[in-house]
């Protein structure tokens, strides 16, 4: 479903991703853990071109979507193509990034109507179904500023799902939330995983990773240090850096 090959990314002389190779299969839930600044978010954001890689190849759904060397494109990717790829990837951000000038319902309807030209009535129907799914139908006419952080993040998940993505990317979805609001967002994500959605989740929620992930990837200083089942990584970490990270946070 997703494949990264020899992916490198530098900001000037700072190398934030060093030779990343990762494959995610359909229906898999992969949790990416690691200290801050380890390149987790950058890796996630390079999948939908929010960050451009310096070199390497990225495949999404079997298609080459990015091939670069020395910061130059090998594959000529048009803006239109990037936009098409993005509609297959739904993304949820740490800071929600809801559109504050639109109501909850409008937030969820916006992209299908603007990008896919879905007619109003159909977009509204889908949006309401999704809001029921995340438990926020009664808030549909509120502006995001009137919602709690947990509610905002659930709307953001509904907004991403409205584009009917094949893969969902979560970039520390609960890191900006008050502790008592984390649970409701994780519940929605668990439900999504049970439905068979392919998910890549960058997270500090080890409980969630243990319970839901098929595979856990540990990153440090721009490298994938180790990956395996949650039991492997959490209970029998092979690498010293993984052990010391887990000791600090558990």
């Amino acid at each position: 479903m997703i494949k990264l090959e020899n992916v490198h990314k530098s900001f000037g002389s700072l190398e934030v991703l060093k030779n990343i190779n990762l494959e995610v299969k359909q229906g898999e839930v992969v949790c990416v853990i690691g200290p801050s600044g380890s390149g987790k978010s950058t890796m996630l954001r390079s999948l939908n071109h929010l960050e451009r890689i310096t070199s390497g190849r990225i495949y999404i759904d079997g298609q080459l979507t990015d091939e670069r060397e020395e910061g130059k494109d090998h594959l000529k990717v048009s803006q239109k193509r990037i936009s098409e790829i993005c509609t297959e990837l739904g993304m949820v951000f740490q800071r929600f990034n809801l559109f504050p000038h639109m109501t909850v319902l409008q937030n969820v309807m916006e992209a299908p109507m603007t990008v896919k030209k879905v007619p109003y009535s159909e977009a509204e129907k889908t949006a309401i179904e999704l809001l029921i799914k995340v438990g926020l139908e009664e808030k549909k006419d509120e502006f995001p500023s009137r919602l709690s952080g947990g509610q905002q993040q659930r709307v953001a998940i509904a907004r991403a799902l409205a584009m009917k993505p094949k893969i969902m990317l979560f970039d520390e979805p609960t890191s900006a939330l008050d502790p008592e609001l984390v649970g409701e967002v994780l519940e929605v994500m668990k439900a999504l995983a049970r439905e068979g959605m392919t998910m890549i989740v960058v997270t500090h929620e080890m409980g969630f990773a243990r319970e839901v992930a098929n595979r856990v990837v540990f990153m440090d200083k721009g490298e994938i240090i180790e990956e395996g089942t949650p039991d492997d990584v959490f209970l029998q970490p092979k690498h010293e850096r993984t052990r010391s990270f887990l000791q600090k946070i558990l």
Partner: protein
Amino acid sequence: MNLQQIYTALPALLKGSVLTIELTILSVVFGLFIGLFLALGRLSKNKILDKFCWIYIWLFRGTPLLMQIFFIYYALPLMVPALTLPQFPAALIALSLNSGAYLAEIIRAAIQSIDKGQMEASKALGMSYGQAMKRIIIPQSYRRLIPPVGNEFIMLLKDSALVSVIAMTELLRTTSQISNKTGNALIYIPSAILYLIMTTIFTYVFEKLERKYSVYE
């Protein structure tokens, strides 16, 4: 100066005020279009467009408005005879081009003040740059635009008095004509009051607009 004199002068003063308001509103409207184009140009990745917009703003902010009015009305026809303009269009063009330069910087600052996450979320949802600007970024900048645009509007309302140099009989020129004719300079007092009434009304309108666009905060 007595009330009778003011009463006699009033129709002429009001007529001048109408012209002042017309010039101001039209110039700000045209200026907003010019300013939006310039602001998007300054923000674009196209270096030539960015440079062109930069030069425009540099030119119109860097020279006196009074000189720009003279230039468009007197000098331009000497260079290009086809551009010989009557007073009203010449005045309107000068004021619009000038306010466009100021509004461009106001609009650019407002767009840049919108959280970067908004553009990222739009792109992640598959929107193009143009769609994101039109649907997400620019609508959010309206509320932040209103106070500085209101300020620019009030400034322009007063600066429009400068077009009296090309014999446009807006409020200031009307007043000085009456003053010259009657030999009574106190006619500037009711004229100043008219300016104050106009600026007060528009200040109120812009405050209303600001409140209207704040509903979602």
